[in-house]
């Protein structure tokens, strides 16, 4: 099939429609406004629901209602808007409702900047709301992945009855790149016999709820959720390794910085520096074992973690996985400034020099 040129945000919206998204609820915020814009035009054409809600809080609660009645529901926003949705996301997780949430990240904290950022890593991977819960977090690094992952996110959400997040950053949302629309393998999904669609002569009442007053019941419920998260950790972890076979210095990065790293690695290799990229595709579950095993290889001397974050967030997961086997240094910017190829090249050389 011929490749088509698509803008990230519009591609994500079209991907959701192709994945059978029944309802989209959203609210504009830069840099993701093209998602609701595209949905507002095209969802009605497919006989589907588009609502521009009065706020982000309303949008996520509309998702809760639609998901509870068995619909494929989605919302999208950017960092400050995703913060507002956290209450809804923990309720979705608690009530075991499938939904897809797209975060096209910008710089923070607070209102921050509208330029690309990655400061929402903790929020996305630790469960940004209250209670013990997790969401599968898919992090595309190009628009083909954004399209593929958005479609698959609906299946993952349905399979586990759990919210799934697709996190990209402003650059991936705004840029254009050729993509191919392809048929993705569909998962074997159970019918949604738990949905609140009316009793229709059923002998029991379906209840969608995240409240368990009895602590023992709540404990049992949490154990059930924990078992589900363990399944996700077993089945859903994904990552990509580029030029790692003989690499002495490994850059760890996701999203846009991972793309920039590809160019940096090309330059480093031209200069004779054996550099590679380890790119988590699922931020949760984090590819802990794969990274641990990579760090154990004798030729690997050092890691450089690169993020669009001032303090570094994913670096904590990198440290947990590497377990002190090799030194890890950090390169990062926040506030909408992207790390450059030149900075990465320098950081990689410096990291190697320090261990040699």
């Amino acid at each position, binding site marked *: 099939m011929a490749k088509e040129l698509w803008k990230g945000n519009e591609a994500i919206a079209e991907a959701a429609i192709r994945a059978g998204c029944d309802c989209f609820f959203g609210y504009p915020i*830069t840099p993701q406004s093209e998602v609701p814009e595209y949905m507002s035009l095209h969802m009605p054409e497919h006989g589907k629901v588009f609502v521009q809600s009065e706020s982000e809080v309303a949008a996520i609660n509309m998702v809760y209602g639609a998901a509870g009645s068995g619909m494929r529901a989605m919302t999208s926003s950017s960092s400050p808007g995703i913060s507002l949705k956290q209450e809804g996301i923990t309720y979705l997780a608690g009530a075991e409702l499938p939904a897809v949430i797209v975060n096209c990240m910008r710089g923070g904290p607070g209102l921050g900047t509208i330029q690309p950022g990655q400061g929402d890593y903790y929020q996305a991977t630790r469960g940004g709301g209250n209670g013990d819960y997790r969401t599968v977090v898919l992090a595309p690094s190009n628009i083909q992945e954004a399209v593929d992952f958005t479609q698959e996110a609906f299946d993952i959400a349905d399979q586990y009855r759990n919210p799934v997040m697709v996190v990209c950053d402003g*650059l991936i949302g705004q840029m254009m*790149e050729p993509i191919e629309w392809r048929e993705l393998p569909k998962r074997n999904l159970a019918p949604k016999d738990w949905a609140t669609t009316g009793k229709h002569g059923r002998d029991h009442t379906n209840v969608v709820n995240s409240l368990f007053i009895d602590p023992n019941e709540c404990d049992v419920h949490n154990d059930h959720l924990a078992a589900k998260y363990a399944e996700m950790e077993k089945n859903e972890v994904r990552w990509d390794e580029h030029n790692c076979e003989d690499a002495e210095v490994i850059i760890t990065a996701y999203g846009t910085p991972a*793309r920039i790293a*590809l160019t940096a690695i090309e330059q480093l290799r031209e200069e004779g520096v054996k550099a590679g990229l380890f790119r988590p595709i699922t931020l949760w579950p984090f590819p802990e074992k794969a990274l641990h095993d990579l760090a154990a290889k004798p030729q690997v001397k050092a890691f450089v973690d690169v993020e669009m974050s001032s303090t570094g967030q994913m670096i904590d997961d990198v440290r947990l996985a590497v377990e002190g086997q090799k030194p890890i240094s950090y390169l990062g910017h926040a506030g909408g400034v992207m790390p450059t190829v030149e900075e990465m090249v320098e950081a990689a050389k410096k990291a190697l020099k320090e261990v040699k």
Partner: protein
Amino acid sequence: MKKEIIISGFGGQGVMSIGKNLVEAGMAEGFQVTWAPSYGPEMRGGTANCSVVLSDKPVGSPVFSFPTELIAMNGPSIDKFAPTVLSGGLVLVNSSVVSKKVERSDVKALYVPCEGIAYEVGNPKVANMVMLGAYVAATGALKPETIEQMIHEMFTGAKAKLVPLNLEALKRGMACAQ
């Protein structure tokens, strides 16, 4: 081949369109391409820019610090980006709007009176097509036939009457680089 191009100018000068035309033509010729816009409040009346990569290998970073070519449609674009162009690179200057010269001896400069030529061929809106013609002729990165074909595909139906105008603008732009 790898071209990393910055196209910069006032919002409304067709800066984003030049970039889109470059990536569409690049795709048609089988190159790997990316287009990344600057976005934000600077687009209203201020200077907007986009970054385009055309490559025969998969594109890593869609953004870059040192462009191989700069297309400067207004004065502020020269101030901001001309110092960053790779040594041996090329700066295309819209001399209808920009009076200043490129003050570097290690890069080539080509002055193209985009709006001037656009008026001459009959419509100021084709200033960006003039610049696209100049870029194609000056770099040889893309075939003129690809752009001509694209113009035929871009303007169909009621807009088909715009084809000769755009082809003329393209040709006049190319002549600037001869």
